[in-house]
């Protein structure tokens, strides 16, 4: 409990720092108003927006206002959705709250991450276990090279190739967009390549480590079948590094799907981020980065908690 409190406190601090950094850095470039309305916008429209958004105030005032709102859960309203032109100066009534926009995109990203991990976790673990069962065997070599290929491939390139092959040539799957499961298959496959490789690698090396430990001999000496030795005895002990890797890769999927979401026009948080960057929608950028960072923190926390389930030796922190 104490540990959780400390972790959470650290995380909140970290999130605040991140958001502050994004806020300050974001203000250093260009004129947000101009970016929102485009170069064709009139100066009247620009000035109106600046006034309404408080962009003319000194930076520190904007910052304090921002943080104060943030602490009440208010991330501000999007510069983009709702107006490229300004019918009134009451921004809050006009713009959509950015947090809503971000949250609306989360399910798509979650779905993609879930399908990708659903592919990657079982296959990665299985590959790693098979490889570790007979080191340097043909199966091991194949797994090693396949796993390395998975981590070496350029994701967006793989995505392009998959589209050309499966959607255009064969016409089996849609080229992109959001919809049923069939829409998620190609992007999820693209995203799964790396986690498969990394999970297989870590599973292999963790299993190799565990398989050379004395308790394995004990289990064999008890007359346990080899599958029992591998899957019951070794795998549970190898779980901690594997879970860590799954957590890392899950975080990467939640944050790093930018390119894949772009290639497949998958309306997740990655696409939102790249859109908000191109449009310099600062509140949206801030909120997306904050939400994504929060997700990463959450994933890390879950990973930590799950350690305890698989490994009774691990105590969170040093409570006693």
């Amino acid at each position, binding site marked *: 409990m*104490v540990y959780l*409190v*400390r972790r959470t*406190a650290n995380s909140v601090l970290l999130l605040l720092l991140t958001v502050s950094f994004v806020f300050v850095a974001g203000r250093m470039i260009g004129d947000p108003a101009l970016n929102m309305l485009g170069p064709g916008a009139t100066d009247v429209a620009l000035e109106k927006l600046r006034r309404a958004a408080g962009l003319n105030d000194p930076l520190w005032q904007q910052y304090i206002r921002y943080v104060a709102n943030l602490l009440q859960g208010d991330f501000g309203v999007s510069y983009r959705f709702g107006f490229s032109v300004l019918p009134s100066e009451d921004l809050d009534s006009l713009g959509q709250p950015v947090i809503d926009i971000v949250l609306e995109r989360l399910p798509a990203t979650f779905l993609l991450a879930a399908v990708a991990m659903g592919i990657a976790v079982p296959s990665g673990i299985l590959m790693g276990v098979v490889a570790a069962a007979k080191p340097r065997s043909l199966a091991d070599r194949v797994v090693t090279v396949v796993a390395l290929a998975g981590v070496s491939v350029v994701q967006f390139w793989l995505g392009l190739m998959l589209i050309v092959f499966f959607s255009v040539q064969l016409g089996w799957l849609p080229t992109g967009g959001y919809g049923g499961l069939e829409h998620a298959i190609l992007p999820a496959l693209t995203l799964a390549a790396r986690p498969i490789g990394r999970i297989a690698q870590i599973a292999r090396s963790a299993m190799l480590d565990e398989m050379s*430990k*004395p*308790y*394995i*001999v*004990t*289990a*064999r*000496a*008890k*007359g*346990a*079948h*080899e599958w*029992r030795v591998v899957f019951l*005895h070794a795998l*549970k*002990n190898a*779980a901690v590094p594997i879970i860590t890797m799954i957590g890392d890769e899950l975080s990467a999927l939640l944050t790093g799907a930018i390119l894949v979401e772009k290639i497949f026009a998958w309306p997740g948080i990655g696409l939102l981020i790249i859109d908000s960057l191109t449009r310099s929608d600062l509140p949206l950028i801030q909120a997306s980065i904050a939400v994504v960072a929060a997700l990463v923190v959450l994933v890390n926390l879950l990973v930590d908690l799950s350690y305890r389930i*698989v*490994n*009774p*030796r691990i105590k969170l*922190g*040093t*409570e*006693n």
Partner: protein
Amino acid sequence: MTATPAVSVDSLRVEFPTKGGSFVAVKDVRFEIMPGEILGVVGESGSGKSVTSAALLQLTKFSAGRVVAGSMRLVRGDGSIVDLRRSDERRMRNVRGNEIGMIFQEPVIALNPAYTIGWQLSEGLRIHKGLSGKEANASALELLQKVRISNPKRRLKQYPHELSGGMCQRVVIAMALACEPRVLIADEPTTSLDVTVQAEILSLIALLRKETGAAVLLITHDMAVVAQMADRVVVMYRGEVVEEGSVRQILHHPRHSYTRALLAAVPKIGEMTGTDGPKRMKIASQSGKEFSPAVASEEPLLEVRELTKRFPVRGGILRRVVANVHAVECVSFGVNRNETLALVGESGSGKSTVGRCILRLEEPDSGELTFEGQNLLTLSRAGMRNQRRHMQIIFQDPYGSLNPQMRLLDQVAEPIRNYRLDKGTAVEDRVASLFDRVGMPRSFLRRYPSELSGGQRQRVAIARSLALNPKFIVADEAVSSLDVSIQAQVLNLMMELQADLGLSYLFISHDMAVVERVSHRVAVMYQGRIVEIGPRASVFGSPGHQYTKTLLAAVPRMDPDVSFADIEVQARALPSPIRSVDHQPSSSRYREILPGHFLLRNDLY
């Protein structure tokens, strides 16, 4: 004795593939074990004794070892005889754990850390007897009671890391007994345990043998353990059986020269009764030079006063210190010139910490260290660095204490270079003469540690510690990881160096027999305190403290007439050395029971 042996091994040969071709780990080994008999297999590391036992269960194949010749006949429960060498994996699985149980060297890591004791105990039953979860649990409890573990019900739900090493070994034994095997293999079952725990476990094995009538194959490097446990003994050397016979025959009338050498190299407790100083081991010294061990002077060199070291335990949101591990508590002693003071104790007694505090590798919390009249604790960094020239240390682990990436020459030369004692080729000459001194060939100067055997490494480590001409050396378990024959050589070397160079040693060890052999005075540590200190003859001859008595009683003796089953060693859980922050322990008070022989008066229990 029945006519059919439970196990009979004949012409066994096990090979491992290596880069230079096959390595023959075991060749032409033959022995038999009768039901109810304990066969001791004794040998030093690399003798092939563990491989032999692994081969019996065909476990070698998991590490690429191949049984290439011979037969291993086992009488099965139904009376049929099978050759384990020719059994397929399925039959082997049926044999493992079911007909042959196995006990391992390091019980803590031989248990799966991720499962409860109960689960692991009942696993064999579920596999072989097809018991349901409930039945298996009941049997598991029964087994724990059988191995006389305290609080067995609670243990079932605990994990290995929550148990002490001794308890873990009891669990491993219970596991091995689960399916009531007719043969029990115990591979160095007590090597990693403290001597008092070792006594408990050995007496348990002896007891269980009586109860179950199983044939026991006991593998060990310790002659004394064999002497007290085994009915018959097989001596192995470099993969071969050099001698086999009844325990008395081997101990009293060894025929093979290796057996004789081995027996000579073992320090036997009690054999020093009636002598005062240390005595060299009865083996041919490598330099061929005879020497008589040093006689301690009365001139004090090092004075330790009320040394205390605690390690903080942090916790809570702000990571404040919430408790302390009281590693060393109010320890005082002195070391005279040319004297060996032995610091004995079991693991966790704080003896190593004392050694490291003296060299300030660990900063003591309080106390006073006076070396040649200089207070070490008030010295500046530079001052301390200067003092270190005169105080050196030899570590337990000859593998770890040498930097694997540096040539031996550079390693031994390093202290000389650090203190700029010599320059250029003079350094090399000096190192060469140090090599001569510790009996290492000069041709090894340009080699790397990985090319050396354990004994050689320890010699190099000694050479390095001598490089600065120190007056005082802390020998922290310096011979513990060496085979007995090597251990004897290194002990002799250390004693010889002491006689020649006038060194003083703080000899930290857990091995009572070795301590008896080499020390002038002995301090016994327990729970971070010295419970008894005095001249060696006095402490060994008339131990005053209850703990010292227990310790001495637990040491295995080279005497087949004293059986472990008869030794009553009372097991006592160690109180936790972790205390709350505001715990203020009383300072140590002593009473002199004999001249120079002091006993701790504080109540520790």
